[in-house]
């Protein structure tokens, strides 16, 4: 066990965990930040996507020991009132079915649009291809990302 000081959503947290503990489980089991989801645990589905210094990252394979001073943002900290342009677009398009993957989808889209504010539909498809939605909301995800580029 070791002590880690983490910067998450603009706040400081201290946790005492094994160094190989993935950030995902630190967030969920130790800090009560359960918006970041577990689904595959092997960086295949994107449900666990968070931002590390703004970059979309699979938290299920990211050991807590590798984070250091990096800034972590989770779905809970993406915006103050849930009104980030991507969240607004997700609501406007009414994207969700079961909803389980959507936090990861939103985090991926937000990071992507930050780097590429005016993407083509093909670029949206490429960027969002790393997140699985078992309910098949892909058409709505594409629509919502496209809408977010306009409302940003």
């Amino acid at each position, binding site marked *: 066990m070791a002590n880690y000081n983490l910067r998450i959503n603009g706040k400081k947290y201290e946790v005492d965990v094994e160094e*190989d503990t993935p950030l995902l489980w630190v967030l969920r089991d130790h800090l009560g930040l359960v918006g970041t989801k577990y689904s595959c645990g092997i960086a295949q589905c994107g449900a666990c996507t968070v931002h590390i210094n703004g970059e979309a990252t699979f938290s299920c394979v990211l050991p807590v020991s590798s984070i250091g001073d990096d800034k972590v943002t989770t779905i809970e900290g993406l915006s103050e009132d849930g009104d980030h342009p991507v969240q607004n677009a997700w609501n406007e398009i009414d994207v969700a079915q079961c909803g389980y993957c959507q936090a990861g989808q939103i985090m991926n889209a937000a990071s992507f649009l930050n780097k590429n504010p005016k993407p083509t539909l093909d670029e949206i498809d490429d960027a969002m291809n790393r997140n699985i939605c078992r309910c098949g909301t892909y058409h709505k995800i594409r629509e919502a990302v496209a809408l977010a580029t306009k409302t940003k």
Partner: protein
Amino acid sequence: MADISKTNRRDFLKLAATATGGLFIGFYWSGCDSPKMQVLSNEEILAKVTDFNSFLSITPDGDIVIYSPNPELGQNIKTSFPMVVAEELDADWARVRVLQANLDTDKFERQLTGGSGAMPHSWERLRKAGATARDLLLTAAATRLEVDKNSLTTEKGVIYHKSSGKKLNYGEVVLDAAQLEAPEEVIFKDPKDFKIIGTPIKNVDNKDIFTGKPLFGLDFYREGMLHAMVQRPPFGMKIKSVDDSEARNVSGIQEVFVYDNNVALVGSSTWPIMKAKKLLKISYEPEGNVESTADHDRIFKELLDSKDARVMREDGNVEVAFKNASKVITSEYQCPFLSHSPMEPMNFFAHVKEDHVELIGPTQTPDSARVQTADLLGIPKENISVEITRLGGGFGRRLRADYVLEAVQISKKMNAPVKVTWSREDDMTGGAYRPAVRYRFSAALDVEGNMIGYKLRGVGMNAGNSVRQDNFPSGAVENVLIENVNYESSVTTNAWRAPITNFLAYAEQSFLDEVAHEVQKDPVKFRLDLLQKAKSSPVGSVNYDVDRMIGVIKDVAEKSNWGKNSNVKQGFSVYFSHRSYVAQVANIEMENNQPVLKKIIATTDCGIVVNPTGANHQVRGGIVDGMGHAMFGNLTFENGLPKQKNFDSYRLIRMKEVPEVELHYVDSGYDPTGLGEPALPPTGGAIANAIFAATGRRLRSQPFVEQKEYSDMNLEIRRG
């Protein structure tokens, strides 16, 4: 047309005024000999969710709380049910708040998610609840205003008396309404006057979903709760010995124990348990059939020729028909096992206490979970409470309570609150799959190309019946023989979204396409001719409505410009399941001699569309799901264990693999039927038939991408 509905007064009216001035009108679903009054203030209603004893409440402030009884797994029932109540109540949707009800079968009668059955079951009950409340509010308002009740109108939670210009909010008369007896009969709205039903209403949980609130079972945490995982045996195996010494040494592990052929690991958080689980050394020995995919393939072929088939339907005399046929076509179709793989793996919380068991988590069948827990522990089911969380998908997997009982057993053993979590690998190897199945179809054709005989034999696994004998083309063919052979596999199986029909529809629609091409008839006209026969001179009884099936076929043919553009190679498919009708056309365009799957067009008849957004979600999602599994889904076995254990080897459809999807609905005016399943079955057939039209290659097994006919056709999937 507005129609009058008799209410059984005992059924659902409960009224109460509270000491603090709050009030609600409650409605029970089912009969109840002595209606109980519940007295709660507005704050209590909103705060004490578990104690609230009714379905619909209106506060003096005019706020409306509607309880949603059924588990929500993405079918959008938590939004569409309250829409129906609010419609008949003439409520202001902006004032409606929806809460998930806990399990209470006395109040809610049917609390399960499966079979696309919730809306057809509850449509009239929901309308009655809303219409009765509105009627009482009108009676109270008429007395207050000293006017004739019939001179009053309602709109968005306000009662108007047009000639005097007076108006009252629902909240203002709810106290008076509380004193009234429920009416013997209520009048339903004419559907043409619907203001909420038929409009796109957003998912009531959007804000919570998009901000990461703890909605799902896996998000449930409680102070002092232990975490647990379970190592289950391969199918057909039992534990011979367990060496858990290394697992026990992992920091954070509290207990490792064997029960019922499983090894349970308990600890303070999830990650140490995941690590410890990999350090278990368990040896197994056979206890029954230890099966591999090669065994299944062999068994299918053997049983297709079995003499012990069970006859499910027999019309006319197929023997004579096939003997007299000028041509006979026979084809076999096979699909593999599939995992349900909802994005949220199985999990459940249980706290077994001396006098009470608390169950919290994602289940499609909360009552079954309660009954099985009661049986397991030998306690009355009244001592068990079930709180239903949101489900991160279900697809039929959460109809089973196996993972609930694991939490119960471990909580009892540890004498502590426990949450059991399945890893993705557990979820994929832990059983209850869509079983593999193989079908043999035969058609007897006369000299004019008429189908005079039709035979179908299915070999299913643990399915009881792998066919749907009263579905189309039964009724349209003079001589029919439909049989089933069942094989009992040690691999556990379970309903998977659109059970049986999720593959049968593809096989049948593909075979009918083969027959149409053989007799050189247009595949759409071929089916319409058969349906005409089913209408004019039906053979035996059928479970589908011929006109409604013709309706979706004609509509999708028109919307897809069927057969009008020679550059577009089209595949057609239609299927009736779970009370709804869905026809689909897949469009493949040839670009530089390469087939590109660009679009799927669907026409659905589900009666009245309650929420267009929700309906589109279900139909489009069903198409994407049906396509994904037809193209890629494959779970194979070796020595009783799935070879695919996670999403790196078990392929799910992704963003770049979906074509454009275009949706249409037939406005048939029937009461609404469910949509969670019916759009999935036709999709595989539409795609396979389009592939045949484009390439001349017939795909008779799934997944398509693993068939040799598919390997060099370079099919691309691209929208637009």
